[in-house]
């Protein structure tokens, strides 16, 4: 089946996640082979996902772990987790 650009954009996530069926994947690849706009959309989306997932983008606040475990230590010293049924 010949896909237009809009159809290809709808399939970009499935293409990146490799969840498309073989026939749809082949249709998308046929389109990508001759459409520079869709190829650039795919390349830029893939690139942006790699950048956003990098741990350097969101860094933990300085001292976060120390403050967290200090607070947990206080709670732990106060007593064991209750056996009650209160909701979290």
């Amino acid at each position, binding site marked *: 089946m010949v896909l237009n650009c*809009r159809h290809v*954009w*709808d399939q*970009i*996530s*499935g293409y*990146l996640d490799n969840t498309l069926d073989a026939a749809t994947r082949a249709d998308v690849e046929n389109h990508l082979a001759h459409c*520079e*706009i869709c*190829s*650039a*959309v795919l*390349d*830029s*989306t893939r*690139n*942006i*996902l*790699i*950048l*956003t*997932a*990098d741990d*350097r*983008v*969101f860094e*933990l*606040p300085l001292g*976060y*772990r120390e*403050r*967290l*475990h200090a*607070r*947990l*230590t206080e*709670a*732990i010293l106060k007593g*064991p*987790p*209750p*056996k*009650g*049924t*209160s*909701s*979290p």
Partner: protein
Amino acid sequence: MIAAILSGERELFHELIRPYERTVYLMALSLLKNEAEAEDAAQEAFLKAYRNLARFRSEARFSTWLITIVLNEARGRLRRTQPALTDSIDDDREDNVTPMQLTDWREIPSQSLERSEIRTLLRRAMLALPLPYREVFILRELEERNVQETAEALGITQASVKMRLHRARLMLQKQLAPQLKSAVSAPRRRFLWF
């Protein structure tokens, strides 16, 4: 380990939660968009997890349970500060996101993340996503949770997870592609002596 903690080895709780310190903080930040608030919400979520550990059911994943607790904590705080806030969206709507149409893309290498303005662009774009998309995006892309776990943590269907993730990706491409392109191609400012 949970059974050991419940039967008296309380100190093990520190080890139990260590792998989730970042996830819980990031989920709080993705809702609250403020580092100090997010840290406080994350601490509160871990304390609630400790106090309610006996209620954890082993058929659930511990990470999903923790994520649910921190999301509830952060949502409660949001409701107190922004009572009119709504996070409902219609996943069946037909309005597709149109990506930024470019004719070529020059790859931006990960080394560019050493520049703080690039990290800021990425953070701002993610935090500007509508809340239902933001939650899914952070869980799937940053925390690498699978579709099923994301759906369980957020209480939505797997189809909604896939739809929201797809739209979030295209929204980010639309916003970030031109910004990154110009940020990376712009020459760095240098101090000139003449």
